[in-house]
């Protein structure tokens, strides 16, 4: 059973990382209505930045040219900042577009970025990637407890992002984001500088995805471009839609469920012995889950909740706490 626990821990860690990604996407889509289909770009930037900041400088045989050997904390913060900067750069051209355009352009930009990762060896190690990425407090935590420690770290990150999402959601800022999601022109008519809001939301969600990337980098200890395909964006979307967009709890639940579903289907072969078709069947099941959820539970498992008048009055009464 201990072995199972260990496997569960790694599944939970991955699920937690996806939960952070989904929380970021929830700020984009769920709160602001930004049809971002290039979420993996922020994830990748966060991961590569922290990797480059923390790995030792390269030896002669290695393809990359930069490695700063900085502490992991610096790396993670750096990863978040870099993801935020990329959000600004991507946002300038894309956030003025209609939503469908944004969807396709963001996929395109994420693809361009992946090709840069594959080709610019000096920066990313190219297809060979970056290896030997340090893990926080590796020498301090006993090895047998390390996985649990790291899971704790990821849970902490989920908690932080959740708390921040909640704070945004309940704030007047979040209210403006929702108004933009519902009807941008009407929001403009009320004097909201909507581009600025869209950009700020884009950056906040991007930073969260960057954090997820940084956590992934230190969990996986190695990065290759194969880890940053469009399927990550898609899986995050599925998690958010299944869980319920516009609801942070839903984002976390959805990410957890979708990863659990993906990993649980690994046990299919043991059940029925379907042999060769099992791997493809697993993917077909994931596809079917998506279609079924959208059809029968379109608002997700935990739909967005309205904030009532009474809640507003109460919050104002207690001085905002």
């Amino acid at each position, binding site marked *: 059973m201990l072995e199972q626990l260990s496997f569960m821990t790694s599944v939970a860690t991955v699920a937690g990382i996806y939960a952070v990604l989904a929380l970021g996407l929830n700020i984009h889509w769920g709160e602001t209505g930004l049809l971002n289909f290039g979420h993996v770009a922020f994830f990748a930037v966060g991961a590569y930045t922290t990797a480059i900041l923390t790995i030792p400088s390269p030896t002669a045989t290695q393809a990359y040219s930069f490695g700063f050997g900085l502490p992991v904390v610096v790396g993670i913060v750096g990863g978040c900042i870099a993801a935020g900067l990329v959000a600004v750069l991507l946002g300038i051209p894309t956030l003025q577009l209609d939503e469908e355009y944004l969807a396709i352009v963001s996929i395109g930009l994420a693809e361009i970025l992946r090709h840069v990762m594959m080709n610019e060896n000096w920066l990313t190690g190219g297809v060979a990637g970056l290896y030997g990425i340090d893990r926080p407090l590796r020498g301090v935590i006993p090895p047998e407890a*390390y996985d649990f420690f790291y899971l704790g770290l990821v849970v902490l990150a989920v908690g932080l992002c959740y708390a921040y999402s909640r704070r945004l959601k309940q704030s007047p800022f979040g209210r403006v984001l929702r108004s933009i999601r519902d009807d941008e022109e009407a929001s403009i008519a009320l004097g909201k500088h909507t581009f600025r809001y869209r950009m700020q939301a884009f950056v906040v969600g991007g930073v969260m995805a960057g954090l997820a990337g940084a956590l992934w980098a230190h969990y*996986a200890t*190695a990065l290759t471009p194969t880890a940053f*395909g469009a399927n990550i964006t898609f899986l995050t979307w599925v998690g958010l839609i299944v869980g319920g967009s516009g609801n942070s709890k839903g984002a976390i639940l959805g990410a957890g469920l979708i990863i659990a579903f993906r990993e649980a289907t690994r046990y299919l072969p043991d059940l029925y012995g379907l042999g*060769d078709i099992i791997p493809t069947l697993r993917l077909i099941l994931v596809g079917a889950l998506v279609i079924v959820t959208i059809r029968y539970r379109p608002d997700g498992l935990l739909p967005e909740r309205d904030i009532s008048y009474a809640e507003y009055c109460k919050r104002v009464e207690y001085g905002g706490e």
Partner: protein
Amino acid sequence: MVNGDKQVDRRTFLQTTAVAGGAFSVAGCMGGGGSDTAVLGMLQPFTGEVAWVGESSEVAMNIAVDQINEAGGMNGTDIEIVTEDTETNQQTAISALRKLTDSDGASAILGPTSFTLPAVMDIAQESQVPIISPTAGTSVLDDRGGNYIFRTSASDSLGGKAMARIARDNGYEEIAVMYVDNQGGRSFGQTVIEGFEALGGTITTEVALTPGKSSYRSELTEAFQDEPEFVSLTAGTQTGQIILDQWDEQGLGGVWGLSNDMQTDSFAADVGAPLEDSYAIGPLPGGEKYDEFAAEYESRAGESPQPFTPEAYDAAMLAALAAEAAESNSGSDLAGEIPAVSKDGETVTSFQAGADALDNGTEIDYDGASGPVDITSQGNIRSSFAVFQSTGSEWEQVGEIAADSLDF
């Protein structure tokens, strides 16, 4: 989104999902590594463009495991194979590896390919389960292997140098280099370039290809713009065949030097006459042992062995023999024995013979279907290569490049 009347309420949906998830988990606990069998994990791509790698190496591994189980199993325990799909994706590979090591309790992992091996090696090391890859040629492993990471296929850095030698030894001074731009392709292609330049030749063009495209005509135009007489190509069979077909169609001339992936008779036959006189490198045929393996493979799969299948067979054999030598099926115990059973001792070619010799306290040297399989302390094999030339329908061995001649 509109809430239609078809809404399933949340509780029902959650319950259904939970029940389904629970059923999977329970099944998992029942299915995975019970104590009465030992588990060898197989981590390979089973979906997508390189699904053939997983499928064919599973056949090879089954041959090995059946033979081992017939001979009484690994330390008297029957071996069960658990396969996991990497989807050629780092994230999936890590999850899959964790499942094999943690949930299934695998003694050793066979696989994966160059795409994902570098991404999982640290994790295998941490879990103290050895990885023996029959399929990862990437030069990243040259100085990262050993300890828990081994491979039964030659490094691309050797293969690339061997390719450079073939071109040089046959009198070509200017060559073009094409390779698919992935982990395996690039490290091979780059060593061809470095090797050929070290031997005093000139590279006219270097073309990195994206695998899985439908047309490579422009890449071919680019590669052949200076009319090189010899072009080195590193690619899988699928991309390779498209490129060669389009090269033939375009009538571009020259001869090819093909990487080991394409050194199969079915490939030579499919491309046919245009390939005549082109070269390929490959492992030295393992003689009788290989023929025996090939016959068995053919009877199971209905085709001649795919590339890397003898290596997969040998990887399984090595794992089992190392377990015998360590007298333990635990990954951390057997890992240290993997280089030891591969060289310096009484030559054995089957599990039965090896297990018997080890019982008598004799050191063994396993020679397998893919050749002598001598694993260095860095986890690599240092093998000689065979040079093949196409007759227009099959590969014919025309020479050999000794391992010692590749130190440049």
